[in-house]
């Protein structure tokens, strides 16, 4: 070939390389949009969501923390957490209630009691669990419920950037503040917390993960050197705490004894049995760094946690972990872990992670988020797995959005400019450019990814009615109407609490289990349930905290598609006892008490 044709071919190759993928992806997007339009009918998805908060009597708008004026330049970024939601049936009336935290000084938390008729009424004030943002005590960040004294009623722990608070549930009639005699410390800048029975003694222990360094007091700080020392290798965050339940209403700090030595910036935790040894392990999603997986092992002096993030691969690549939730997404009898991160076109494309074990019980994970289509959400926070259309496969609801300020003002450039800098620069808030009301990853939409059952998820959020663009933080799933459909409750930072009522296509069957432990903790936290039907099996585990600053309903919900029966249900209780149920009734809530 002579020179000119060669050059022409090369030029063509260059142009094709430059623009080929662009044309391909545009064509693909058009095709997907067409499919979305064609499938707009609710019947195609098997569900639709209707936002009914106001109509249900829920008029809650979260108010953000107020900080020391020295931090004013980036206050919207720092005060960007505090909206949380947790589900509890606090009075054992069979209807799940909703507890939400508020964060500005003097603002009140709310407990929305489910009246069972689609309406809710706030009872937090009368029960004594509303006024937890008193000046000088820090700000509420989240809440997690569990029956720590096994009296049959769920107790309340509220974690804060401040003084943690523990309330005993007095048979659903009132709550008694028991913080002072519980042995909890005076101050923890907590980013997450959960209940777990780490030593298998039948009493729930409390894990609290620090976020900000322990010395930080955001309401009145003597120094502006409070920021992470790296945006991907930050290790100057808050310490972790594990409190052993002594059984007499007190808790003992055993953190050092069990080997939990992390000082990373933890934003989410989930306790689950990842290696099938019957004991709960801990997964920490850390901001500004790698995730950590602590395996609960027997040691010479009791239980120990060993960190295996790097060898399991979940802690290999540092990102901005903000969510930890688990689900058997492939109906393979194994729990995968979903971690949310940050993705912004052209600035930061971290992608969310779906850590799928290479085999059930295996501690080697592969990130399949991209392959399964659930990688890019935005500046993502909370996420939950649940079968929202009762087709037998777990779907994923993800909330996004960081700071929505002026719609036409964008802080991304300034953010990216400083975050590439050395630790000595970025760790001091006074070096940060002022936000001046601008947005940073604001006005982002939520995602509802339906699981196609073929290893791929597809986003139907807009089509099924999830259109709001508030700054989503926490999301929880609960069957609030006891009708077998999982409703979605979203806590937005500085925005309204949203209740999406789920309308599932008739003919889709389901089964739910409400477990009560005897030898195990009464809340049955840590119990695993395997449901087998139609030749497939799905595993779920009872957890306290799940997602970001959230707790789902205690019950376990399984969608069954059009199957008319369940073959077998196997329950492994935290005590180790295994119980088998043959063909339990479907389309109903099955209350199960641990056999003696």
């Amino acid at each position, binding site marked *: 070939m002579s020179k000119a044709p*060669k050059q022409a071919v090369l030029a063509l190759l260059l142009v094709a390389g430059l623009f080929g993928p662009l044309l391909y992806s545009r064509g693909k997007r058009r095709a997907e949009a067409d499919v979305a339009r064609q499938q707009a009918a609710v019947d195609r998805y098997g569900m639709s969501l209707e936002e009914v908060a106001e109509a249900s009597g829920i008029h809650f708008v979260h108010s953000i923390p107020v900080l020391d004026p020295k931090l004013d330049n980036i206050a919207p970024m720092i005060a960007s957490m505090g909206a949380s939601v947790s589900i509890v049936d606090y009075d054992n009336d069979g209807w799940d209630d909703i507890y939400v935290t508020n964060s500005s000084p003097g603002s009140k938390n709310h407990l929305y009691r489910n009246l069972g008729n689609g309406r809710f009424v706030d009872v937090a004030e009368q029960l004594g669990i509303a006024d937890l943002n008193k000046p000088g005590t820090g700000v509420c960040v989240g809440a997690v419920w569990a029956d720590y004294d096994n009296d049959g009623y769920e107790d309340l722990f509220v974690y804060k950037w401040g003084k943690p608070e523990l309330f005993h549930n007095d048979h659903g009639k009132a709550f008694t503040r028991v913080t002072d005699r519980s042995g909890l410390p005076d101050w923890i800048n907590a980013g997450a917390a959960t209940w777990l029975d780490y030593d298998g003694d039948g009493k729930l222990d409390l894990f609290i993960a620090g976020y900000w360094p322990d010395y930080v007091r955001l309401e009145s700080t003597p120094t502006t050197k409070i920021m992470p020392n790296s945006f991907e290798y930050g290790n100057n965050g808050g310490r972790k705490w594990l409190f052993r339940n002594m059984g007499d209403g007190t808790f003992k700090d055993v953190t050092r004894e069990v080997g939990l030595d992390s000082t990373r910036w933890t934003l989410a935790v989930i306790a689950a049995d990842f290696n099938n040894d019957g004991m709960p392990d801990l997964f920490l999603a850390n901001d500004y760094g790698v995730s950590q997986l602590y395996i609960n092992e027997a040691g010479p002096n009791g239980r120990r946690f060993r960190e295996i993030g790097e060898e399991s691969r979940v802690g290999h690549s540092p990102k901005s972990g903000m969510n930890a939730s688990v689900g058997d997404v492939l109906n393979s009898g194994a729990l995968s872990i979903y971690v949310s991160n940050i993705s912004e076109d*052209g600035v*930061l494309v*971290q992608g969310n992670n779906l850590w799928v074990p290479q085999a059930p019980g295996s501690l080697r994970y592969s990130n399949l988020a*991209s392959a399964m289509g659930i990688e890019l959400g935005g500046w993502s926070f909370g996420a939950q797995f649940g079968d929202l259309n009762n087709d037998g496969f777990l779907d994923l609801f993800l909330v996004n959005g960081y700071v929505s300020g002026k719609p036409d003002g964008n802080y991304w450039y300034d953010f*990216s*400019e400083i975050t590439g800098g050395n630790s000595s620069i970025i760790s001091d808030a006074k070096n940060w450019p002022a936000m001046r009301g601008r947005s940073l990853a604001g006005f982002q939409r939520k995602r509802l990814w339906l699981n196609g059952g073929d290893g791929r998820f597809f986003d139907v959020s807009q089509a099924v009615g999830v259109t709001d663009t508030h700054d989503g933080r926490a999301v929880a799933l609960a069957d609030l109407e006891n009708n077998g459909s999982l409703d979605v409750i979203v806590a937005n930072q500085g925005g309204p609490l949203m209740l999406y009522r789920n309308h599932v296509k008739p003919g889709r069957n389901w089964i739910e289990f409400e477990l009560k432990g005897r030898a195990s903790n009464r809340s049955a936290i840590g119990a695993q349930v395997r449901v087998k039907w139609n030749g497939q099996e799905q595993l779920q585990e009872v957890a306290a905290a799940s997602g970001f600053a959230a707790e789902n309903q205690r019950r376990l919900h399984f969608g069954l598609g059009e199957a008319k029966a369940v073959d077998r249900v196997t329950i492994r209780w935290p005590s180790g006892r295994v119980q088998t149920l043959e063909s339990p009734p479907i389309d109903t809530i099955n209350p199960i008490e641990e056999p003696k």
Partner: protein
Amino acid sequence: MNTAVARGPGETPTTDGRVGRLSRFFSPNNRYLPPLLITCILLGGQLEFGVLESAGRTLLAIATSMVVEIVLARVVIGKWPHLASAYITGISVGILLRSPFLWPYALCSSLSILSKYVLRWRGRHLWNPSNFGVSSMLFLYPAAVASLSIQWGNSLWPMITVWCIGSIIIYRLKRFHICASYVGTFLLLSWIRSEVTGNPWLSAVAPLTGPMYQLFVFFMITDPPTTVRGWLPQCMVASLVAVAEMGLRLNGVVDAPYYALFLVGPVANAVDLAIGSRRAAPS
């Protein structure tokens, strides 16, 4: 080679021979020196901090770059190429590009090498290959790629070490003035930017303390085939890149340095070639 012949008058075969070898190793003619430096930076960053998105992606970028170079050199000029340049391109792409996908690494490397063979004028390619590739990817595929924007670890010492060693090697390669011009101008302009925007000067200067700039300064703006001739013009072009970057930064362009070099580099090269050919033409 006969060492007796190679040795100069009065040189001893021991000390001065070692000095000579060292001198040759650090000479501008040693094409292995830049690849060695960038490999050291990569290995140091990876072993100490695990900086790579994944080693596989970087290897893909390097392999693609070298394969495309070999194929194009054989097809277009019928020769086996020296792979030092392709290696640097691949490794730069592997470090500078951040993407959760694999395809951007292969595509970016391919585009970078292709640009050397296609975008030529008067026998020279105009764009720095990896700058062309990375800029194109950032501009066309923002949903799939971003550039390296984070710090390697928390300590100041790795950064200072890389700057010092890099500066010494670049000095030996007689291109330190380019880096110095760019850095000096950047520092000056960052103060001006700070005054204009009202942002702290340390935030304006922060990017310079990150690893991306180490690669940009040592490997992109100093690339011999795509820099102009002459000490002073080289300094001027480096400063012009910093000026263009300031303009982009003031307009909130996140990947300003890449685009600045993308815009200024080829124009400067074209002017240089035009002036050179005019001088060479018979009067």
